[in-house]
């Protein structure tokens, strides 16, 4: 198989791709707790931490620690840069798969009749 130099290596790994895609499905500015993300992805805490650290090192993910009624809570969110990188990555994938029509593919923001995606 030929190399794919244009694909962002930080995102282009199965586990981090799932993490990034899931975080990108949140509304911009929204963050999710570490346990909820872990439950959503069905990954071990150690594995998820490892991948989050790589995404954090690249500036794609921001991890914040807060306290809710004296209990520490860790929040994870995609940064603007991370969201941009994910969009670029997805566009690159589409271009690789179908160079002819990639340009014509509009971003997925259709009229959503059942409101299944957040605004």
């Amino acid at each position, binding site marked *: 198989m030929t190399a794919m130099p244009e*694909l962002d290596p930080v995102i282009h790994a199965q586990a981090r791709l799932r993490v990034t895609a899931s975080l990108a499905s*949140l509304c911009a500015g*929204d963050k999710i707790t570490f346990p*909820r993300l872990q439950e959503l992805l069905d990954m071990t805490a150690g594995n998820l931490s490892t991948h989050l650290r790589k995404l954090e090192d690249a500036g794609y993910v921001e991890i914040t620690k807060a306290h809710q009624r004296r209990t520490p809570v860790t929040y994870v969110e995609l940064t603007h840069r991370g969201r941009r990188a994910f969009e670029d990555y997805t566009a690159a994938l589409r271009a690789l798969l179908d160079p002819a029509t990639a340009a014509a593919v509009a971003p997925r923001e259709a009229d959503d009749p*059942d409101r299944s995606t*957040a605004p």
Partner: protein
Amino acid sequence: MAERGTTGREQGTDGDVTPSAADALAIIQQAQSHAASRLTPSIGVFYTIWGVVWVVIGLVWFLAGIDVVSPAASGWGTGVAVVAASVLSAVIGIRTGRGISGPSTRQGLWYGLSWPISMVLLGVLVGALGSTGVPGDTMAVVGPALYVFLAGALYMLSGAIWTSRVDYVLGIWIMVVAVVSMLVGLPASPLVIGLGGGGALLFAGVRALARRSAR
């Protein structure tokens, strides 16, 4: 998540699996539809719950109007149905949003609260109207019509907020139902509301649930 096809896979330098472009796109789609179904409440469930409530309320008040059941029993039935559906809606909304915070949580909270706040205030308004000496029969048509009209307006606004054509059209339809119930008058007005409004909600609910499960 299930392992995807292995064609074109390479082992990355960090020991993580590097998928092919086609696999990567499939992983994205699967992760995002999984996230959407777990993190956002299914609107079809809400439509269905409230559709049932509307049909029940419409039927019990129609039956009260033709002296089949007592108005007191209809009142209790209405109260229980509304409280049960409100609690269920709140629980579903809170459960799906747990662990997430940010602008969308605030939006969801304000949106969710706009229903009980406006409904309770309308209740006070209708109560005040009733105490001004408006005949009971008139109030029995005007009161429900006002509630239905407000619900329609809120649905229409929901459509604008969440860019949902279904909500928007449903809102207009429900306001039309309110007007028609006023024109028809007793004893058919509760039936118009129950079947017209509740029926439309149930239709939208079943349609949304079918679409969601088809994804």
